[in-house]
């Protein structure tokens, strides 16, 4: 199968890979780059466990071709923390016990970050609808919504101080 040569940026690092034209970005991330934080829960865009951002846009990486990210900027859960400093969403998810099995967590963190980047002070309803594309079967979403709300509040506190 003729491969496509792709140069892109993943979590700030320049990355090159060759993949078949029909290979998804999710498979590229997991099987070629070794970034297994993004999960395949369905492969059809229904569960959000593979959520990443491409040029800042939230997407399901199972519905993006690897070939499409030529020259783009891809962000995954592995790039969420700033060195040894966790992103507030990451800290709040742990503090609020917003994960049980944790397999949906990377997708939720990426989707929640995309929400807060666009809407720093979301209402409970806005949080729930923004995260509707991420399925969680363990928590009933209760502690997840609380964790995102707490992270938003902390982030705006920090922003004020600056």
């Amino acid at each position, binding site marked *: 199968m003729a491969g496509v040569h792709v140069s892109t940026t993943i979590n700030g690092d320049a990355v090159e890979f060759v993949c078949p034209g029909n290979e998804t970005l999710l498979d590229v991330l997991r099987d070629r780059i070794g970034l*297994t934080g993004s999960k395949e829960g369905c492969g059809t865009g229904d569960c959000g466990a593979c959520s990443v951002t491409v040029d800042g846009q939230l997407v399901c990486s199972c519905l993006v071709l690897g070939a499409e990210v030529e020259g783009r900027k891809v962000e995954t859960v592995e790039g969420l923390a700033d060195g040894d400093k966790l992103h507030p969403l990451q800290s709040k998810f742990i503090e609020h016990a917003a994960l049980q099995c944790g397999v949906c967590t990377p997708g939720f963190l990426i989707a929640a970050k995309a929400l807060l980047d666009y809407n720093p002070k979301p209402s409970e309803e806005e949080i729930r609808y923004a995260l509707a594309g991420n399925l969680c079967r363990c928590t009933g979403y209760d502690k997840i919504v609380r964790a995102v709300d707490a992270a938003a509040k902390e982030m705006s506190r920090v922003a004020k101080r600056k």
Partner: protein
Amino acid sequence: MTPDPKYTKQKFKLVGTRPLRPDGLDKVTGRARYGADISAPGQLVGAILRSPHAHAKIIKIDTSKAEKLKGVKAIITSADLPDLTNGDRGMLDILENCMARGRALYDGHAVAAVAAIDAATAKKALQLIKVQYKKLPHVTDVDEAMADDAPLVQPHVRTRGGDSDKPSNIVSISTFGHGDVEAGFAKADVIIEKSFKTEQTHQGYIEPHACLASVGPDGQGELWVTTQGHFVFRNTCAALLGMEIAKLKVTSSEIGGGFGGKTHVWIEPVALALSRKANRPVKLVMSREDVFRASGPTSSTSVDVKIGAKKNGKITAAKATLRYHDGAFPGIWGMLGAMTSFACYNLENVQSIGYDVLVNRPKVAAYRAPSAPMAAFGIESVVDMLAAEIGMDAVDFRIKNAAKKGTRASYGPTYGPIGIGPTLEAVKNHPHMRAKLGKNQGRGMACGFWFNFGGQTCTDLNIGVDGTVNLAVGTVDVGGARASLSLIAAEELGIPYEQVKCNVADTTSLGHNDMTEGSRGTFSSGMATIFAARNAVEELKVRAARTWEIDVKHVEWADGQATAKGVMHSNLSPLTLTDLAKASPNTGGPIAGHSESVADGAGVSFASHICDIEVDPETGATKVLRYTVVQDAGMAIHPDYVEGQFQGAAAQGIGWALNEEYVYGADGRLQNPGFLDYRIPVCSDLPFIDTEILEIPNPNHPYGIRGVGETSIVPPLAAIGNAVSNAIGVRMDHVPMSPPRILKAIKEAAAAEQEVSAG
């Protein structure tokens, strides 16, 4: 031999607090490794060919073209999985479910498998395998499967508990109860009788089944797998493949949800067989479609309930007939439904009859308090109808009839101290019950029961020279158990939580551990951890005695340090766990505590739920407005994760009640094998789920722990059914209560009204 597990009213310093879970960081950074997250050098990709037919004879499987495809390293069919079960039909069923033997028994039944150098090649190979089928008549409905002329799913099956010796789809008829129900009904002032149906649901864990298998010609092998019980998987796989248990090392990955669905092997024996044939590691991952078509969902059910009561609200008799399908292989799901059906109540005359029935659907697996929710839907609905008929408040009616210590359970034994009464009282006094309701809104409540159990457990506790503690457990952590078990170890040793690191050990590092199922994880591993820690403390005291050169009987352990008793030793200053650890190389070597136990006598558990729902009378759409869970936890070790279990179980029950269902076509094929049309609740479907944890100690656990994982999936079907019925004034008798079903019920009721007023 298990030390005395009796509850001792121990005072706690750490248990009951809410520290951060030790595996949290790995799980928010993407570092945690699940079933599909590792690879091996030289790894092949496995893929499984599945039957497109509900029921078909497999005439011929031609793999010759696929074998010739470049990059294909192994192809197997049932011929590569000989029957080594010497007469154990249960084991043979497991093997046959992993790979069809002559007949495909359901849409999605595996018929062949390949291992190839990559996924694309494996996929192409599957397309090249030619299977010649002869379609056979099929049956997918539980009631139709019970008819005399129904197509037989397993011709060898004879009905246990029945009087006929003819082949039948009815696997068994199981009767429970006591007293004389007919005499009881004769005494009743009011009798309500109604039939109910519930559709098949799936556990819906987000992580599909996945494993990495590696077996060599030397008969040694390794399996990395997402499972609720790697020791049980090891034993099963070894038996099915003729391997020696000690030579198959099974490591449990992080598990992305199980809820019972990962207590059964589905693809693992196939991956091992492929690896053995190719002599290469094989990674096998189910697609979401495969998960729905071929890994264990629940039973669909058909239930008749009849309950009679006096005007004063006392139930005089209760009877239920419960028909559950087992899928294509015999199970005990109907029997379980019958056992749990009336467990909440104190009944003089009660009878429940459970039918287990074969159909051409995937083999049913346990799903969180298996079989109890469907039974509770019918019973708790009729209980509400009966209370209404008598003109009594639904909660008061349940309180009047609730089981208590000394009640003979409908499934047989006499209860010890139990929590049903207290959960009902808590519901009665909950502000939720007094909140105002608006137009088209209704409130419902219901209670539920689950057994819980303990089982075999083995735990190791090792103290490092710096005084930090490794706790090795063999029960998989499905949702925070490592935090709870670390709390227990720290509590017993008298050291900070942070000084303990809990790991889930592989099958070569510990003795056998049963599954994380039946809400046993924290109950049984908690017990084993207590005993392991206490053994370590005994050794610590010995080391202190040696250090002081005094008799160990003069050494006391408290708050993480050894002290010497008596005035004669008053000059000896205490030795902390860390002091003793540091000195251990010269006081006898490493310090450890070990425990093997059978944690029996797990306490039964009860929950009562309240639900407010709004119905759009023009479309049948529903919205859950408010939801409250009250459950007895015995003792909450880490309350965050107890609440999490309550909330998650309630959410699954809500999805079951409203929108989740397997849809089969007339051709017997599953029409909605994906998260698009198998509709589990999304974040915007649910409100916050309030929880109230009751703590009625379990007398058979040192800390009073009861399992908490399952019970709260039992009440939601009925709680929502009662709420919807109260909102629209029509009794719902079919789960899921999807908008089309609710709209139909509203219109039929309206039509009936018309007739009445017209006539």
